[in-house]
């Protein structure tokens, strides 16, 4: 591909992102819930699950991945999309007594104590990689440097909402 037709795909990162915004004509700016995952992650504590999209029971959460996370588990599938950095995902096939007792329970919970069960394996996610977090498995994130994940899940006990802080308000 020659220089004059080569394209540069612009991704964002914790170090470098440019934020757009809502230009109001005749509406409430907060109705657009405008935020940016890198800005959220840059201000979040490691492994806080900050809700930045919600639709009834469903959420998208931004996570600052930094160091080793607690072990999480969930009664339904979740997905983790890496938007910046590099994150390992370790999986354990939980024994029944450590899974979420209510199969209808929405959202992730912390595994109590060390996860017991067979090691399922692990994955290394880089930017653009999306991982399945299978239901009733335990999963742990490990990131040597600050990284950003977006989680597709349901709103649960660990979901943190601070819309007024993350969204454009004027």
């Amino acid at each position, binding site marked *: *591909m020659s220089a004059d*037709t080569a*394209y540069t*795909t*612009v*991704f*964002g990162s914790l170090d470098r992102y*440019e*934020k*757009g915004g*809502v*230009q*109001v*004509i*005749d*509406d409430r700016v*907060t*109705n*657009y*819930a*405008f*935020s*940016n*995952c890198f*800005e959220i992650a840059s201000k979040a504590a490691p492994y806080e699950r900050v809700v*930045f*999209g919600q*639709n*009834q029971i*469903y959420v*998208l959460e931004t996570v600052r991945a930094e160091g080793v996370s607690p072990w999480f588990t969930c009664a*339904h*599938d*979740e*997905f983790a*999309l890496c*938007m910046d950095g590099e994150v390992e*995902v370790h*999986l354990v*096939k939980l024994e029944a007594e450590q899974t979420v007792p209510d199969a209808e329970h929405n959202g992730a919970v912390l595994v109590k104590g060390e996860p017991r069960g*067979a*090691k*399922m*394996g*692990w*994955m*290394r*996610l*880089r930017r*653009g*990689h*999306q991982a*399945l977090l*299978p239901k009733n*498995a335990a999963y742990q994130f490990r990131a040597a440097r600050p990284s950003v994940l977006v989680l*597709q899940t*349901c709103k649960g006990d660990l979901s943190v909402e601070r*819309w*007024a802080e993350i*969204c454009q308000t004027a």
Partner: protein
Amino acid sequence: MNAIADTVPVQATEPHATLGYRAFQLGGFSFRRDEYFAHIGWTTADGRPLSHTMDIGAFLRALMRDVAWGFFYGGVNFDHVFGTTNHYKTVDLYAGRFNATMKAAGVDRLENFPTPQIAATFEQMLDDWTNAGFDPFAAPQETGSPYGRKNGSNTAKITRARELATRCVGLKGDLDLRSDERGAPVNRAFADVPQEQPELHPEPGFENEVHAFNLFGFLSRSQVTWNPSFTSVVKHSYMCPTTEEHILPIIHANDRVEWFFQMCDEIHWDCADKTTGKPLARVIMKAGDMAAMPAYCRHQGYSPKRSMLLVWENGSPSLVYEIQRGESPEVPVVF
């Protein structure tokens, strides 16, 4: 062209002697095309003839989405006059209904059709009116002109199936990854997107559960624009990423809140009132930006370079009725 649609009778003329295109009739609406335009005709409530003209390229690009998406969620406005509203077993076809002036003047028309009937008509119209050199799914820089007289057809390109994962792309038995071999080379605008798949280290027996894939690589190989796929599903939460270039060919009036997560590059959105068409806001989205489209708005996007947009939909079949009953808010969040 699906099996159901082929069994429904469609009202169409013989091909025009000079132009080569068929004209179509659906209820009180007439459709014909010439070298440059789609012409839509109808009779107003008080019995007068009215008409509307659209550039044929714009019309076919909109028609392509309406057909491919099965009339999508809510309203698919072809422009400020014409469009469809999905009721999921039936579809409203309208002209002027969601144009404040035309509605107030009483010159609008709306008719409801069983989905198979309007689908069959739209599919045949799309097939008859699309020439060999024009792909309504492609970016304008990647296809030929929609104009001129009847010149072959492009059936294969306009009948591409939507790519819908049921759990996650790449899982055994689910939607396949895209590759050169499967006819999905990397798009010119994404030549710099890394194609490596994630490192997977499953223990024996867990090969289909320790699963990840390169979503950006997958999207870099999209052959179409403004056509969401499903890539991962949590209950009724659908990740519907799509690659966008030039203008969204429809003005989408969703019947539910819809979220956009801009994964690279940028898109500018025009948002307007769903019922009247009055401008409400512009939303400028860059890489990493998240925004909701409230359920009261219609929206149309402009993507200067091919970009990756994650459309996040709540596909709950009961949601639209909850919204209609006022049980579900039209806004994404109150704070």
